[in-house]
């Protein structure tokens, strides 16, 4: 800081830098977000409401919520389990596993969807044997699988560091007091992870509900059957029904705002207790 010239009174650097920052954010982030609200409500709230309660739209929102829910549930439980195993036990290949679990962050979602197709599709590696008994691709299950794939590392990534910093002596104290492993996990370990679990779940859910790239490949994008909310936006826009697309876009945007506010404001509360 010694190179900065400190002047008594008005410091021009402050308003200038804030102005620049907002100036960059405005066209890149703030205006696009604002425009969906401005456009979506420009032809009246009534129209907006009609677009929202269209059966296809409701179905798309529901499908998104349900598939994201299952993907979140799976990834939180698995993330918790994987974090437990990888911090408790050191074994040959444990570092490699940590890297592999984190890998999906780096894979383009279209590639994720494509690879699922190559595995479970009718001519896929496994799909060619299973296709005669049941179908996975182009069903809601495919959407869940795709969601699991792309959100795989999120909960794990939040929970593992908490496990690592958690004092081992808490669990040992619990054991000396007479607790079984399971009792210790339930009464001591899990409460310490509450904040991380909630954060991990919200991140996973938020990411899953907006997933597009992988879903469009594996779902088949059939309206009222396998069309999630983001796919609905894309489809309606392509059909020229901009209001319909916009209504759902607003819902998704509000939903993300909501999740991030919860994350932001509840974080300190969750960590404390």
């Amino acid at each position: 800081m010694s190179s900065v010239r400190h002047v008594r009174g008005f410091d021009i650097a402050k308003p200038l830098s804030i102005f620049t920052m907002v100036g960059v954010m405005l066209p890149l982030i703030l205006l696009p977000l604002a425009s969906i609200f401005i456009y979506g409500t420009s032809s009246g709230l009534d129209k907006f409401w009609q677009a929202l309660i269209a059966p296809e739209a409701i179905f798309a929102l529901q499908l998104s919520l349900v598939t994201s829910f299952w993907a979140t549930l799976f990834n939180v439980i698995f993330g918790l389990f994987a974090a437990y195993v990888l911090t408790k036990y050191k074994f040959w290949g444990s570092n490699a596993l940590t890297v592999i679990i984190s890998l999906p962050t780096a894979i383009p979602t279209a590639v994720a969807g494509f690879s699922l197709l190559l595995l479970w599709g009718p001519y896929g590696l496994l799909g060619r044997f299973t296709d005669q008994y049941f179908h996975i691709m182009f069903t809601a299950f495919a959407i869940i699988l795709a969601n699991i794939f792309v959100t795989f590392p999120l909960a794990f990534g939040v929970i593992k560091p908490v496990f690592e910093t958690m004092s081992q002596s808490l669990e040992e104290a619990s054991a000396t007091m007479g607790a079984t492993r399971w009792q210790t996990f339930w009464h001591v370990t899990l409460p310490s992870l509450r904040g991380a679990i909630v954060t991990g779940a919200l991140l996973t859910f938020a990411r899953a509900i907006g997933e597009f790239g992988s879903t469009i490949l594996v779902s088949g994008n059939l309206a009222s059957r396998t069309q999630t909310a983001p796919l609905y936006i894309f489809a309606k826009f392509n059909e020229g029904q901009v209001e319909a697309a916009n209504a759902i876009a607003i819902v998704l945007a509000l939903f993300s705002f909501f999740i991030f506010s919860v994350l932001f404001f509840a974080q300190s509360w969750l960590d404390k207790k």
Partner: protein
Amino acid sequence: MNIAASFTDISKKFGETSILEDINFDVSEGEIVVLLGASGSGKTTILRIIAGLENCNTGKVILHGKDVTELPARERGVGVIFQNYALFPQMTVEKNIGYGLKLRKKSKNEINKKVDELIELVHLEEHRQKYPSQLSGGQQQRVAIARALAYNPEILLFDEPFSALDAQIRQKLRREIRHLLKQINVPAIFITHDQEEALEIGDRIAVLNQGKIEQIGTPFDVYNKPSTEYVATFLGTANLILGVVNNGVFEAENIDLKLTDDLFFKNGQSVKLIFRPEDVFLRHPENLTQNYQKLIDGWIEEISFVGAFERITVRINFKNGQLITFTRPKTETENFPLQIRQKLEIGLVRFRIIPNFPLTHERSAKVY
């Protein structure tokens, strides 16, 4: 006295490194045994073996007559007060204390009653609904003790419980803990690297050096009758003079000191004379203590004032000009002031002779 716990021939290796060797001691009912040793001497490892958090390679852990060596920690019923207390951060003081009883499927009523009783015992009435992060270090420690007492532990184990607190609080807590332990009469093992703490808290002290117990005895004995040089120097300042024993007399250059203790040494055996700074007496006409022996003459090299007493460095009448230090209380300082280069006759009130082992591995042979 009834034996509450005993540990026999315990040894432990981590990989190829031997961490503990031949650990043998027991704790009587209501007794406080202190494990005193430098950092890394294996104190925590002994405690973890007793608690069942670590296996031992050989040896037995016996609690109230029952061999628990093969039992997991949760079946041993031992109370551990960890170095950082390890209170459960999401539980209130009450919940922390009641946890052991809840695990034992006690009724709500029974738990509440016991928790009330313990909260009163450790004086935490106003804090019962607080979380550990809202408590001071001393209060957290009392919760940790109450929590361990809730399920009537076989023995209490303290792992340096004061190391996280500042010096002044430490002194106060020492007395509190000793008082509490005597009140409830539960046997305890107390770990520390602080010799003053050990002397104040322990009924007996086991001095640990590199995984071996060098000596175990009352604070008076380990301080005044150290059986090894390590014990002598670890428990305070000690003067050491090399010599030999002949017919019950310690001989060195200009020293002939008659041995008073019935220790058995071969004639001509190489030994060390050990004495503490406060066990030195000066000869002057007014100061006629009956029970001291003349050691040697010397000349005062340095006098320093150390608050409650005076510390004096003396060059004794040896060819090598060896220095020894002694201390004397304020009353004497005022009545008989000393000057630098003054000649003195030095006598000893209390001293100790230990075998001199030139090689450390020979140290394991002890004097009894």
